[in-house]
C-alpha cells in the first residue's frame, strides 16, 4: 500500500526530473563523461544509481527492469496484500541516523533513510530506487528517462523517436495492466502477486518489453544519427558573448595573433567570458584589459591558482566597475617550472593574492615586487595546495 502511495507521490515529480535531464542527456550524447554521473535520476537517488549503470538515462531502464515492469503495475492497481512481494531490497540503507525529515532533502551525508521523505524529495527517481530490483518502479525510471530525453530539445528525428518509444511503452503497460486486472479477478486472495501470473498477462508483458526495447533501439539509432548531423546547441548565444568576442578580437589584433589559446562562455558561472591566454603575452593582455577604452577592467576581484596535476593554472577575475563587463583570464603553466608574469604592476591588488599562490602552489611571478611566502612560515618546504603535497615534517 505504501508502495502505491509512494508511486503516486513520485509520479507527478517525473516531469520535473525530466526538465533537468536535457543537459545531462546531451552531455552524454556528445560523448563527454564530463558530468561524472550525468543522469539526473541517478543523482536524485544514489541508491538506484549505484545499482544501475550510472551512465546513461537510457541504460537505466534495463530490459530486465522493463520486463518486470508490468508486474508492478498490476501490483499497484490491484492487490494490497501482496506484502511479501513488495519487499524492497533496494530500500535506502537504514544505517543513517534518524533526523529531521527535512534533512533528507539536504543531501547531507547522514541523511535519514526515511522512505516517505525519500519519496517526496527524490520524486519519481526515488520511487525507482525503492523498487528497482523486484517489482519495477524502474519502469517509472524508464518512463522518466524516455520522457526526459524526449524533452531534451535535441534534433527532431531523435526526439520524435523517443516520444514514440515512450508512448509505446506506456501503451504496453496499460495493456499489461488490463491483463493483470483480468487475472486478478480470477485469482483468489492475496497470492495474486507477480509470481502467479496468468498466461495472457505474461504474453502481454513480454510483448511490451519487446516493443519497448525495439523502440529504445530505434530512439538510440535516431539519436546517434541526429547527433552526428546536428551537434550544434539550439541554445541562443549568451548575452555576454559579444564581450567575449570583442575582447578576443582586441587581444588578437592589439597584443599578438596567437595570444589567445581558448575562449569560451562559462555557463556555470553566470556566463562568465573566459579566455585562456599564453603566459608570455599575459602582461600585455593585462595592460590592454585595464587600459583599453572598450574593456576598462580596472578592478581585479580575485586570483585563484589551481593544480590540475597535468599543469597549473592561475585565474584572474577582472571587472569594469562602471559597465560591469567582466572576464576570467586563465594562464596555464608548466608544473615543474611554473611561471606566470605578475599582474601586480597592472593591478596593485594582485600583490598578496599572487604571493598566496606562490606560497601554496609554488607558482613564480616574475615582475612581482615582493614575492615571499605569505601564509606559511618562511622556511616551509613544499607547497601545500599541490595535489601531491606531502608534509616534510615527520611530526606532522
Amino acid at each position: 500500500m505504501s508502495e502505491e502511495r509512494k508511486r503516486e507521490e513520485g509520479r507527478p515529480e517525473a516531469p520535473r526530473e525530466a526538465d533537468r535531464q536535457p543537459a545531462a542527456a546531451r552531455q552524454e550524447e556528445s560523448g563527454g563523461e564530463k558530468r561524472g554521473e550525468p543522469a539526473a535520476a541517478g543523482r536524485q537517488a544514489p541508491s538506484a544509481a549505484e545499482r544501475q549503470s550510472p551512465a546513461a538515462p537510457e541504460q537505466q531502464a534495463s530490459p530486465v527492469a522493463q520486463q518486470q515492469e508490468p508486474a508492478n503495475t498490476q501490483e499497484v492497481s490491484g492487490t494490497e496484500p501482496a506484502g511479501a512481494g513488495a519487499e524492497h531490497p533496494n530500500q535506502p540503507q537504514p544505517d543513517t541516523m534518524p533526523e529531521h525529515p527535512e534533512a533528507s532533502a539536504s543531501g547531507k551525508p547522514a541523511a535519514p533513510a526515511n522512505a516517505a521523505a525519500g519519496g517526496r524529495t527524490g520524486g519519481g527517481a526515488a520511487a525507482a530506487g525503492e523498487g528497482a530490483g523486484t517489482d519495477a518502479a524502474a519502469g517509472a525510471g524508464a518512463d522518466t528517462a524516455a520522457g526526459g530525453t524526449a524533452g531534451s530539445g535535441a534534433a527532431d528525428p531523435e526526439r520524435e523517436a523517443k516520444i514514440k518509444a515512450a508512448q509505446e511503452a506506456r501503451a504496453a503497460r496499460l495493456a499489461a495492466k488490463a491483463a493483470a486486472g483480468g487475472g486478478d479477478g480470477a485469482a483468489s486472495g492475496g497470492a495474486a502477486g507477480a509470481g502467479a501470473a496468468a498466461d495472457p498477462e505474461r504474453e502481454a508483458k513480454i510483448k511490451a518489453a519487446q516493443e519497448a526495447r525495439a523502440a529504445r533501439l530505434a530512439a538510440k539509432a535516431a539519436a546517434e544519427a541526429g547527433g552526428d548531423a546536428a551537434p550544434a546547441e539550439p541554445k541562443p548565444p549568451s548575452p555576454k558573448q559579444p564581450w567575449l568576442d570583442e575582447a578576443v578580437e582586441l587581444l588578437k589584433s592589439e597584443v599578438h595573433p596567437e595570444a589567445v589559446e581558448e575562449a569560451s562562455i562559462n555557463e556555470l558561472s553566470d556566463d562568465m567570458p573566459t579566455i585562456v591566454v599564453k603566459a608570455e603575452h599575459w602582461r600585455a593582455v593585462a595592460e590592454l584589459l585595464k587600459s583599453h577604452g572598450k574593456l576598462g577592467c580596472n578592478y581585479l576581484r580575485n586570483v585563484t591558482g589551481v593544480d590540475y596535476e597535468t599543469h597549473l593554472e592561475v585565474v584572474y577575475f577582472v571587472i569594469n566597475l562602471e559597465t560591469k563587463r567582466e572576464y576570467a583570464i586563465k594562464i596555464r603553466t608548466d608544473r615543474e617550472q611554473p611561471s606566470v608574469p605578475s599582474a601586480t604592476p597592472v593591478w596593485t591588488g594582485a600583490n598578496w593574492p599572487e604571493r598566496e599562490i606562490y606560497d601554496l602552489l609554488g607558482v613564480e611571478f616574475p615582475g612581482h615586487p615582493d614575492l615571499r611566502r605569505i601564509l606559511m612560515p618562511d622556511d616551509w618546504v613544499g607547497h601545500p595546495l599541490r595535489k601531491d603535497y606531502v608534509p616534510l615534517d615527520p611530526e606532522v
Partner: protein
Amino acid sequence: MIRTEELLLNVGPQHPSTHGVLRLVLKLDGEVITEATPVIGYLHRGTEKLAESLNYTQIIPYTDRMDYVSAMTNNYVLCHAVEKMMGIEVPERAQFLRLIVMEMQRIASHLVWWGTYLLDLGAMSPFLYAFKEREKIVSLFNELCGARLTYNYMRVGGVKWDAPPGWIDKVRDFVPYMEKQLEEYEQLVSGNEIFLARVRGIGKYDAETAIAYGLSGANLRCTGVKWDLRKNEPYCIYDRFEFDVPVGTNGDCYDRYMVRFEEMRQSLRILKQAIEQFPSSGETMGKVPRVIRPPAGETYVRIESPRGEIGCHIVSKGKAEPYRLKFRRPSFNNLQILPKLLVGETMTNLIAIMGGIDFVLGEVDC
C-alpha cells in the same frame, strides 16, 4: 647634538588593537612610521586544502571559522556557489530566512567593529553598548540554530532549521528597538570632538587607489565608489527590497565609520521589509540530491559580506568533494593597503587606521 636612530618595533602578533594575531613590523623615525610590513599567517588553518577532502556540507562549518564575526554570509557564499552549479532552487521561505539572518549578521558584525574601534580609540562605554545590542542578535541566532558564533545554519538548497514559533516576531520587535538605539549611539559618538580629531582626515586614499588595491566593502565605498554587490549584482532576493548604498566622499577613517554606521540603518530597513513579506509557511529546503555532486566545471560567485566582496571559486570534477575551493576573503585583500596607509603616520594613528579597515584575522589567514 640630537641624533635619531631608526627603531624597529614589533606590533603583535598579540596586540589588543589587532583583534587577532597580526604582526606588524614597523620602522620608526621618532614617532613617525617609515615602513610597515604586515606579517600574517598565524591563523592559517589550510581551510582550502582541507576542503578538498570534504564534501560540500562538511565544508560549511569551516566557513563559519573564516570570518567568525560574520559566519552567516560565509555560509551563504558556499551554499550559493554549489546551488548555482547544480541549478538548485531555494524555496521562498528559506530565501527570506537567509536574507534576514545575513542582514542581522551585518548589523552584529558592524556593532562589533563599532564597539572595538571606539575602544581602540579610547572610548570604553560604546563597546559595552555595542555588545549589549549584539547580544540580542546573537541570542536570536542561538534560538534559530543553537549556536552563538559558528552557526553552520545554511545548507545547499536552503537552511537547516525553520524559524521557531514566535522568532520572526522577536526580530520584528528588534528592528524598531535597534533603530532607536542607533540614533542614541550616533548622538553619543559620531559628533564627539575627540573622536573626530582622531579619525577625520586620517588614513585617506582616493577612489583610484581603492580600486587599484582591490578594496571592497566600506573600504571602497568610503571613497565614493557606489559598489555594493547587493545592489550591483543582486543575489538571494535583495533585488526585491529598497535600500540605499551609503558612500563617503573623502576616503578617510571618518567616512568609513559613517558608511558602516549608515549600513546598519539600511540593514534594518531591509529587515523591516523582509519581515513584512515573510511567507507564513513553506519549505525551508529545496530539492537536493542526497549526495551533492556539482557538475564538472567551475564557478566564481561573490556576495557582499560586512567586510566586502567575499567570493567562492569552486573547481569541480563532478565529485562529492571540490577539486579546488578558493575563497576570496575581503579582509585579506583589504589589508594589503595597510603598509601604504601607515607610512608617514604617527604611532597613535596606526590604531585608528588599522581599526578603520575592519579586518578579521580568521578570514585573512583562512
